[in-house]
């Protein structure tokens, strides 16, 4: 069952990498990398079930957290040009 899920997730990852390589703007690349990270979480969970080592689910959870934080940080960098600034109107 999870072999089929793994194959579908791997196909999606290949398509996302295609958009990372093609993407005309940097935002296309960030979007595709975000999608790639989400699919990585899923495939780590699928590998945990396929190999019977359910400890890997902790790694999947941490990967989800780091993926989200990284995407938001990179977006903030490209939106404001620096990391150390608040939102608009709050310097």
């Amino acid at each position, binding site marked *: *069952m*999870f072999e*089929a*899920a793994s*194959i*579908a*997730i791997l*196909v*999606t*990852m*290949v*398509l*996302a990498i*295609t*958009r990372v390589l*093609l993407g005309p*703007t940097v*935002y*296309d690349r*960030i*979007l*595709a990398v*975000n*999608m790639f990270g*989400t*699919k990585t*979480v*899923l495939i780590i*969970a*699928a590998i945990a*079930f396929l190999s019977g080592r*359910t400890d890997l*689910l*902790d790694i*999947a*959870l941490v990967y*989800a*957290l780091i993926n*989200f934080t990284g*995407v*938001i940080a990179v*977006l*903030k960098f*490209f*939106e404001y040009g620096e990391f150390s600034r608040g939102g608009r109107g709050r310097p």
Partner: protein
Amino acid sequence: MDGALDIFCWILVLIGGAFGVIGGIGIVRMPTFFTRIHAAGMAETMCAPPILLAMMIQAGWSLITFKLFLIMMFLFLTSPTASHALAKAALHGGITPYDEEAGES
């Protein structure tokens, strides 16, 4: 009972995998950036929860189920947030939701 649950899990896995591949095709084939956000965001919301739900059913009641539930809730909360932040950053970054060839997107 066991066979019925297995069939249900297969259906969930197939739904999740199909939505994932559809999102992947959409992210490659869509013409403008904001349509690509649509494809990726919709597919991410619909791809991860069915697969994780099938894993939860297969695992039974244990700590694994709770971990999978945490992953599912986290992805469910952060995926739309990331899409929104991406659209906002792109709009402030000078990408307009208009394309000469495709019209309004």
